[in-house]
């Protein structure tokens, strides 16, 4: 006896109501997400040891607001405290949250509660939605969220071993490259990522591999002290901004060292100073470890540099 399929309208009504309700809640959350009182926001100031009274510090960590800062006439008190507006990254993140909510509801309903009450066609259609369409959105959303959040200084600072390096950014007396780039706004946002573009989610395979290894060492608490950068830091990370500029080209030693710099045989930091506090400057490094630190940058002596410049201009 052929049984004609009978769509269960009750199930769809329930699903439609729940999904609509969920979307309304998510939309309301989107518009009110920035209205959270400042006292409830756990800022980096409450976690790390640096002065967050400066609004520029907060605005730099959470995103670029330099144009808005200048629009406020350079008035620090009027500079916004965090990036406003709805970015594509935030949109994708909320798309993922909504998709997961809807998918879990659908799968629960059709597999565990209403399986025998709905037609096979409706069951298969909803399974396609819950097991294919929505997981695709979730994958895209998660990928986008990872790529966006790993750009922020906050993501680097989420691991407390990075405290000395993040604190140094905001130290007004520090002369490291990172601190100078921050204080002078040479990099307006995503300071860590802008220099370390070859590391982590955005970087090369080596960077991704190192990022995963660092995460594993951190969660298992098995990293070795003192922390030293053991990966590669190509000069391209510096020359991406500085290379080819008139000031860069006017320096004789840059011309003389151009081949060595392109081959990463000499590092920019060998002349321009350390990018971050050296182990000797960090309070977390015991003295005995300072003697065991391996050199991680290629340095060139002043004599060799002078010889190279002279030979270049002969």
């Amino acid at each position, binding site marked *: 006896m052929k049984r004609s399929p009978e769509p269960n309208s009750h199930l769809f009504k329930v699903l439609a109501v729940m999904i609509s309700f969920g979307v309304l809640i998510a939309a309301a959350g989107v518009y009110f997400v920035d209205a959270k009182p400042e006292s409830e926001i756990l800022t980096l100031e409450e976690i790390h040891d640096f002065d967050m009274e400066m609004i520029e510090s907060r605005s730099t960590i959470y995103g670029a607001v330099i144009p808005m800062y200048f629009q406020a006439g350079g008035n620090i008190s009027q500079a916004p405290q965090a990036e406003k507006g709805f970015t594509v990254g935030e949109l994708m*993140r909320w798309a*993922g*949250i909504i998709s*997961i*909510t809807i*998918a*879990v509801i659908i*799968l*629960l309903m059709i*597999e565990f509660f209403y399986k025998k009450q709905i037609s096979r066609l409706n069951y298969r259609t909803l*399974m396609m939605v*819950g*097991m*294919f369409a929505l*997981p695709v959105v*979730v*994958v895209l*959303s*998660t990928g986008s*969220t*990872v790529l966006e*959040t*790993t750009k*922020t200084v*906050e*993501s680097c600072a*989420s*691991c407390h071993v990075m405290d000395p390096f993040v604190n140094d950014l905001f130290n007004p007396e520090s002369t490291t490259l990172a601190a100078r780039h921050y204080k002078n706004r040479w990099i307006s946002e995503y300071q860590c990522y802008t220099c370390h573009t070859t590391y982590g989610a955005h970087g090369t395979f080596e960077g991704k591999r190192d990022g995963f290894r660092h*995460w594993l060492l*951190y*969660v298992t608490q098995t990293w070795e002290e003192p922390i030293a950068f053991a990966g590669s830091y190509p000069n391209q990370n510096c020359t991406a901004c500085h290379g080819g500029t008139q000031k860069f080209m006017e320096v004789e030693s840059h011309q003389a060292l151009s081949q060595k710099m392109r081959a990463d045989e000499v590092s920019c930091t060998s002349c321009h100073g350390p990018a971050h506090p050296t182990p000797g400057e960090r309070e977390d490094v015991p003295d005995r470890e300072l003697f065991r630190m391996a050199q991680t940058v290629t340095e060139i002596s002043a004599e060799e540099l002078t010889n190279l410049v002279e030979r270049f201009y002969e």
Partner: protein
Amino acid sequence: MSNETTKPKEIDKLVRTSVIFTMAGMLLVLLFLLAGFQAWSVGLGVFLGMPVMLAGVGLYIFAVIRDLRFRKVLEDD
């Protein structure tokens, strides 16, 4: 007769398992999306949740292909 009824039951079990895997993976990913970028949330959500979710989807595809083969839909006439 028993073979004809066993196959759909096996496939139903596969589908149910895949649904459970997918839901579990999605809930772990939801932790990451809600909590933000933290060491623990990246571990649970991205490194554990995504593979579990994708395993569930893969298992569902496998169940669908088995079902189609059982019903002889994929065979040439």
